[in-house]
């Protein structure tokens, strides 16, 4: 009780609040930039933490971390680009709402859901921190393994319109995730002796490539602005009302978010999808999902903000970071002398409470500011997309680079961009691919670890039994999922292209088998078994596709029928999208020649002027602003942007790609 009061006193100290507020503002700004998120925000603050008063530094760090999952809603809803991995599911319905001109409604619903989720998460945390230790200790390798299986099964609910294509996407993701050093033996797998692939492809690159690039290309294809008109005045209150109406959903999803966030290892990447699939499974009328259902915004937003509180539990108690930004947070803790450990729930409980409640306050502040400015910022969606798109491309490139600071990430980004565009156009599931990719290493390691420690006996442990029941329940729900019985593929054009694409996809498992067959069995068992399953799934889909093309009669049997539904996808104008994609490749080449900052300025000007010669004022202003931002970031973070060949011939300032010092 004493500790509670002490924490309360410190919470409302003016200096504490001031630093919290400053951190929150920074976090908001960083969150708006797609791909930046809390990790980059903390990276920005970390250099200064060392010189600050510890309690101020703490407030600042919490402030930065808290609102990024709130403000990342802006790019998710307005541009269809997830700002952080936590808002990928928000895009599903948030962006369609924007397209309908209901951006303000979506935003205010998202922010209030986010706020409630954050506060509720903090509340649950204040109580549950007492019981955290036994719960976390009950999660051994076996339980963690089942948890990952459950997460993969849950994604099955999101696998799109064709069950088999969805599962195949998930397996392709698992295969891509197994690229890199084999965790058991240390053998390089599928790396072609390159340094870049040794640690696998970075998650940020996969996420941005799969989700951001296809959206930009798709919008350029659609031509015009994101929304045709805005309905801001009404939207505001409608959004609030939506949240009030769905209060129980907010409650469930924030509980879910808090729980998943607290589980060690699973991290925040999946929490929004889990909330989304929970929503889908518990709703009767699912017809509007993916087309602009407001509940599709409320569920993930309340969950992903609640998770930040939950994720503090393993970070504080065990010093195990649940995600990238928690790694940095831990680093900051150590700098200011906070040592994670069981002390955090015993002797240092006041500090823990101070953090939890600072998180809640920062959430309220952040959501309030976002809401206040949402109608202003929604006007973004009226800006012609040919102006936004090049800026977005530059931002995505920057975000990609900032994460790893590696040239090759650009190539990885463009490759996954191509995969994203084709997946989207040909009806394969991008979320399933991403989740498979993310959980791949965990599946492999946990299965080995579980086997080594328990054999099969882990199945009889109490928590395992609960998880197995949950898994079975998910499977039952999956089989009940409705599929379009009256699917007709007659009006789909370009069926042959989709069949060829299917054959190209077959190359991945086959080449994986080819390159890993000679390795130690502990290094190739996992990728080869995945590849075999993926091979059979893809072959099966290919057969169904060909049968559909030839209109063979065996497809009319009921068992086969649901495999046929949505076997072909009616995509957008694929060719035009590829042209736009190629212009991004042009930007990549410019990067090689001029280095990132100059290439970005050139690309923005060329792209905008190509579409509208009269827009030179905007193009020059935007590129100038971008240069200033890049320069500031470079000096703050000691960043050297990717330098081009030009730096070899001309003496440039350091941040433009010249020589150091």
């Amino acid at each position: 009780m004493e500790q509670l009061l002490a924490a309360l006193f410190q919470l409302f100290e003016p200096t504490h609040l001031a630093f919290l507020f400053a951190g929150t503002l920074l976090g908001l700004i960083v969150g708006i930039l797609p791909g930046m998120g809390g990790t980059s925000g903390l990276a920005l603050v970390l250099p200064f933490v060392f010189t600050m008063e510890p309690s101020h530094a703490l407030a600042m760090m919490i402030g930065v971390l808290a609102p990024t999952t709130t403000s990342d809603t802006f790019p998710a809803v307005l541009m269809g680009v997830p700002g952080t991995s936590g808002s990928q599911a928000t895009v599903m319905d948030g962006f369609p709402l924007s397209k309908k001109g209901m951006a303000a409604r979506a935003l205010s619903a998202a922010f209030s859901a986010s706020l409630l989720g954050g506060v509720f998460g903090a509340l649950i945390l204040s109580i549950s921190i007492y019981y955290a230790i036994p719960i976390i200790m009950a999660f051994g390798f076996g339980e963690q393994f089942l948890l990952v299986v459950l997460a993969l099964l849950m994604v099955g609910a999101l696998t799109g319109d064709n069950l088999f294509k969805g599962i195949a996407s998930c397996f392709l993701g698992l295969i891509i995730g197994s690229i890199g050093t084999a965790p058991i033996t240390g053998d390089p797998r599928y790396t072609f002796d390159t340094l870049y692939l040794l640690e696998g492809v970075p998650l940020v690159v996969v996420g941005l490539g799969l989700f951001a690039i296809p959206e930009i290309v798709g919008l350029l294809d659609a031509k015009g602005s994101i929304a045709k008109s805005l309905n801001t005045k009404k939207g505001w209150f409608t959004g609030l009302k939506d949240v009030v109406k769905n209060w129980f959903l907010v409650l469930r999803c924030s509980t879910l978010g808090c729980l998943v966030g607290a589980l060690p290892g699973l991290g925040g990447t999946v929490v929004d999808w889990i909330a989304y699939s929970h929503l889908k499974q518990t709703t009767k009328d699912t017809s509007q999902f993916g087309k602009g259902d407001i509940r599709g915004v409320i569920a993930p937003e309340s969950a992903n903000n609640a998770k930040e509180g939950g994720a503090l539990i393993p970070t504080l108690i065990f010093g195990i970071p649940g995600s990238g930004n928690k790694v940095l947070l831990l680093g900051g803790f150590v700098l200011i002398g906070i040592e994670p450990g069981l002390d955090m729930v015993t002797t240092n409980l006041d500090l823990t409470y101070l953090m939890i409640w600072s998180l809640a306050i920062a959430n309220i502040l952040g959501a309030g500011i976002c809401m206040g400015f949402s109608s202003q910022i929604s006007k973004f969606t009226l800006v012609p997309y040919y102006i936004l798109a090049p800026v977005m491309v530059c931002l995505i490139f920057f975000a990609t680079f900032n994460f790893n600071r590696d040239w090759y990430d650009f190539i990885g980004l463009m490759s996954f961009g191509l995969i994203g565009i084709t997946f989207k156009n040909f009806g394969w599931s991008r979320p399933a691919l991403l989740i498979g990719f993310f959980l791949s290493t965990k599946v492999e390691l946990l299965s080995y670890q579980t086997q080594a420690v328990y054999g099969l006996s882990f199945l009889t442990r109490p928590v395992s039994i609960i998880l197995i029941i949950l898994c079975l329940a998910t499977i039952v729900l999956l089989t009940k999922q409705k599929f379009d019985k009256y699917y007709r593929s007659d009006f789909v054009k370009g069926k042959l292209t989709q069949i060829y694409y299917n054959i190209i996809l077959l190359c991945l498992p086959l080449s994986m088998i080819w390159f890993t067959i000679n390795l130690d069995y502990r290094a190739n068992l996992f990728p080869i078994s995945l590849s075999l399953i993926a091979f059979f799934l893809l072959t099966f889909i290919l057969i169904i596709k060909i049968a559909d093309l030839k209109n063979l009669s065996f497809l009319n049997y009921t068992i086969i029928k649901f495999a046929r539904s949505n076997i072909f996808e009616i995509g957008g104008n694929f060719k035009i999208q590829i042209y736009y994609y190629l212009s991004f490749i042009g930007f990549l080449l410019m990067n090689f020649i001029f280095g990132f900052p100059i290439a970005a300025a050139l690309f923005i000007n060329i792209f905008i002027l190509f579409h509208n010669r009269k827009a030179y004022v905007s193009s020059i202003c935007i590129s100038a602003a971008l240069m200033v931002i890049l320069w500031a970031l470079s000096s703050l973070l000691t960043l050297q942007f990717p330098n081009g060949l030009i730096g070899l011939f001309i003496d440039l300032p350091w941040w433009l790609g010249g020589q150091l010092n």
Partner: protein
Amino acid sequence: MRKILILIIMSLFSFVSVASADVNFSGKTITWVVPFKEGGGTSRFARFIQPFLKKYLPGNPDVQIMHIPGGGAIKGSNYFEKNAKADGTFIFGSSTSVIVNVATGNPLVKYNLSEYRPVVLLPQNTHWFTRSDLAEPHDLSKIKERKLVLYALKTPASADLFHIWIYDKLGIKGAKPIPGLSSSGGYQAFLRGEIHLSSHGAANYVKKVKPEIEKGKVVDLMTLGIIGADGSVSRNPLAPNAPTFPEMYEKVNGKKLEGDDLEAYYAIGAAWSQASKAMMLPKDASDEIVKAYRDAATKMTNDPEFKAKALKALGPFPLIIGEEAGEIIKKAAVFSDTTKKQLNAALKKHKFTYRVQ
């Protein structure tokens, strides 16, 4: 008497700084390349030293830390090898993994660490422990009787490789690694009762393991031991009752640690313990520059602010400065053929396909 001694030392230092007066970094920016992410151990080490370096280097230059993570620290290290100037404006933050990459002959490594000029080494030490229901303190006999002794192993290509050798030399036949576990993940599993043997570096030992030992749940087994400049091994002051690895070796095998085994122990000790974190200059740095840096480091260790904070930020082991550091790096970065053979034999015995090159 004491005052006079201090005066003498101080005058010595002032003499030293006059001697290196021709090196001056005033107005320059020094770039400290750290091949890891922000917030990691090497990054924290660099950040802690950074302000003192600025304070004591001639000309008080700005020191900026440049993080280049990736490729298991190879990317940043290769970057440094390729781009660093030898004029003292570039320094490198090394760690055990940077050294192990070289010592085990990773083909992607393009940096020749053994020729670098080390300024400061920050030693670490490894502690081994087990659950109190599995063994008596400081006694391996019950562990050796077990058919299955599980322990955490990140990958055989990391510094955890040394665990395989250590357990092999102590004759723990049931030792079986659980792959893919970092030391903190492994400690978690250990607390959950899933693995039997666990180890931690000194800092985490104090923070996380000591409380459990006090509760009676965990018992000390041994430490790697602190290797002196003359090759003598002394006990770790954090666990003064725990035997060192050479003591344990003698107890288990009935003979002194010597010959090839001792050579391998020194190599492992240098890479794992003595050069756990290091600050280095490029290989072409002149003697004057190296001296200026070493002088600044010596002054830093006498700074009252440094003394006040060092125990908490860097741990209990004193920094190693000077020529001795160079010898340690050479030992750590270049494994002799017999040491490599030893490691590979241990790898083979435990059915690993990975080999030290």
